[in-house]
């Protein structure tokens, strides 16, 4: 059975269709979920895409975290469902406290839009479990507030629990410890600033993002998660 990915559409999201296309390219099914929805419709994984949800007013993610859909996303995540936040989605996950730390303005105060080289650090996240530690990926970034920060205790916890998922090989934005992506303690909630969906075809300059998305498609939510979820499938898509 093909994995179904729900891509949340907030007012101001702008990468949702790219994620849908990339999930298709990776062999999965994808559908949009309006931010006002209170039910995830039994999807196998949720992606919070990039963009400027609610105009990024106040702070990126500050208002989006109170969108009705987020209660369902939090329940889904708590039950072990895979939740990925890309760029603005990462900012939303930190504001929702589903991931620790915060994303502050880039060190150089410039909006950055360019391909970067990433190194896979942890393979215990749903996004990297099919990859190899040390593996390098070329994936674009596109952000102004991507400079990850957290207190020393949190950084130590992230390191000790192997929750740093991706690092920049050359730090573009001042992010602490070169962090490009982190996960929660269970590895099922992942936030990253780079856009895997923009590296989903060699015609875009890189297809390295597909490896991450295929890893995600292989993750199945435990039985009983999601209001209308069907039985969980152990087999890979």
């Amino acid at each position, binding site marked *: 059975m093909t994995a179904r990915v729900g891509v949340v559409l907030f007012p101001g999201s702008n990468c949702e269709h790219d994620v849908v296309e990339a999930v298709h390219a990776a062999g999965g099914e994808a559908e949009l979920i309006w931010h006002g929805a209170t039910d995830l419709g039994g999807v196998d994984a949720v992606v919070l895409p990039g963009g400027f949800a609610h105009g990024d007013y*106040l702070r990126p993610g500050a208002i989006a975290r109170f969108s009705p859909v987020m209660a369902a996303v939090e329940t889904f995540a708590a039950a072990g469902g895979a939740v990925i936040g890309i760029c603005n989605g990462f900012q939303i996950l930190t504001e929702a406290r589903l991931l620790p730390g915060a994303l502050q303005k*880039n060190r150089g105060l410039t909006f950055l839009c360019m391909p970067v080289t990433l190194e896979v650090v942890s393979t215990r996240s749903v996004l990297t479990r099919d990859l190899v530690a040390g593996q390098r990926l070329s994936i674009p970034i596109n952000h102004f507030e991507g400079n990850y920060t957290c207190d020393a205790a949190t950084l130590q916890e992230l390191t000790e629990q192997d929750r740093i998922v991706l690092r920049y090989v050359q730090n573009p934005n001042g992010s602490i410890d070169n962090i490009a992506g982190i996960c929660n303690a269970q590895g099922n909630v992942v936030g990253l600033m780079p856009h895997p969906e923009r590296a989903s075809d060699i015609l875009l300059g890189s297809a390295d993002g597909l490896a991450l998305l295929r890893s995600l498609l292989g993750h199945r939510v435990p039985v009983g998660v999601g209001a209308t979820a069907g039985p969980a499938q152990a087999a890979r898509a």
Partner: protein
Amino acid sequence: MLVEVALRPGIADPQGATIERALPALGFDQVHAVRTGKAIRFSIEAVGEPAARSEVDELCRRFLTNPVIEEAHVTLTADTSTAEAAR
């Protein structure tokens, strides 16, 4: 009600640093420690000052600031015009 949101001490403020670097070119070479933030003004109805302050503190903690990187300074000013108008 005035809520000033500022980055916590120690959190890099590239905007403030950029402003500071630009000042000597204008002759303002004695200006240091520039920090930027935002000001949010609003009115709130409450039975008294402690109640208003408690409500705003909660609002700051849950929404107006990200406590990981920001802190709030609240200035409370009594506004009796609304109450008098209602009489």
